[in-house]
């Protein structure tokens, strides 16, 4: 990929990145001639396989948190727009100029910090006590990316795959909600601490259909939390958005925990 091609691709890429997003699924690919970064088959940037380009590709890989794929291969990465800005900037550096190494190092370190904070925000690994629950607490973001088989397993379990509009082709909206609920009850420690819990109510509004392979991001908020005669009533509101930031669904779940 020559510099003119890269400039053209990056012009479109920076336009894509104008809207801040927590998760974009990009592809990092090595062809016979270049290492490319793609979004939905559009090249965002690329570097040639000369000495400068190879240095750039290595730095891009570190920034993305992956290895450079072998020739003819590709790897998918979830990255925020902020992280992708850094990767694009690295790809535009001329590594024949020694000063570029310092700049690349700075950009890579920023990208690594972003990877870390994204992981800690989405890991759901923190142990939580019920006493930690308070209104306004945020959970997620949870990245949902159901495969065809995962989607089908849900449909098989509910028996809801023979409806006239062909659920078999798209993800059951309640599957999204169920996924978030399962993460919430894990984070709260319901499963680990074996806390008697019942699901008391559920609301959901669906705005768009979702297909297997679509990337959905869910953000949940503990809207209210109250203690009633020793039981904890918690209402979680969840917003589901698509890769383009479009609203897919919203839901509200009421659960009662009896510690």
């Amino acid at each position, binding site marked *: 990929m020559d510099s003119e091609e890269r400039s053209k691709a990056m012009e479109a890429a920076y336009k894509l990145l104008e809207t801040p997003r927590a998760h974009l699924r990009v592809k990092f690919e090595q062809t016979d001639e270049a290492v490319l970064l793609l979004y939905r088959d559009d090249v965002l940037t690329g570097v040639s396989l000369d000495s400068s380009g190879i240095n750039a590709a290595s730095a891009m890989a570190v920034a993305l948190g992956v290895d450079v794929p072998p020739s003819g291969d590709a790897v998918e990465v979830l990255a925020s727009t902020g992280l992708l800005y850094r990767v694009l900037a690295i790809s535009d550096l001329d590594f024949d100029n020694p000063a570029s190494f310092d700049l690349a190092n700075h950009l890579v370190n920023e990208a690594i910090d972003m990877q870390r904070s994204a992981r800690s925000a989405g890991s759901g690994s923190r142990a939580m006590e019920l006493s930690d629950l308070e209104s306004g607490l945020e959970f997620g973001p949870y990245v949902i990316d159901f495969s065809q088989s*995962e989607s089908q*397993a*849900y449909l*098989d*379990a*509910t*028996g*809801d795959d023979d*409806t*006239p*509009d062909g*659920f078999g082709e*798209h993800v*059951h*909206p*309640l*599957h999204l*909600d*169920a*996924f978030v*609920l*399962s*993460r919430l*009850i894990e984070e709260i420690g*319901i*499963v680990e601490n*074996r806390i*008697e*819990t*019942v*699901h*008391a*109510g*559920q*609301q*959901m*509004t*669906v*705005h*768009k*259909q979702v297909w297997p392979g679509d990337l959905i991001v869910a953000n949940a908020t503990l809207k209210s939390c109250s203690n009633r005669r020793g039981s904890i009533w918690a209402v979680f509101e969840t917003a589901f958005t698509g890769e383009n930031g479009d609203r897919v669904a919203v839901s509200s779940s009421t659960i009662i925990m*009896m510690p």
Partner: protein
Amino acid sequence: MVTQDRVTAYAHASGDHNPIHLDEEFAASTRFGQRIAHGMLSLAFVWEMMSINYPSTWHKGGTVKTRFTSPVVPGEEVVVGGSVKRLRTMDGNEFVECDVAVTRPNGEKALTGSATVPLE
């Protein structure tokens, strides 16, 4: 028919491994005295009913508001039903509002609520 196999399959598919649905010993110690099905499984039955009746609009603007009022116990056959409550107009768009319910064999409602769906 809600069987324990179905509840277990639902737990695996949804990731909701709350022991009240799966662990016989734990469930015996709860107020229910036995394992119960996921409320979301009952809601899925309502969802199916609405998508059968409103196939073109249910998935593009449908809303459910439900309460899980009584647990479904594995081995029970439930009846899923609904009725049109009223038609209403909101922001120039017409909606059908339905009462929905899932009823257990003993007549208790496992789920009650409403479902609102836009008309084409």
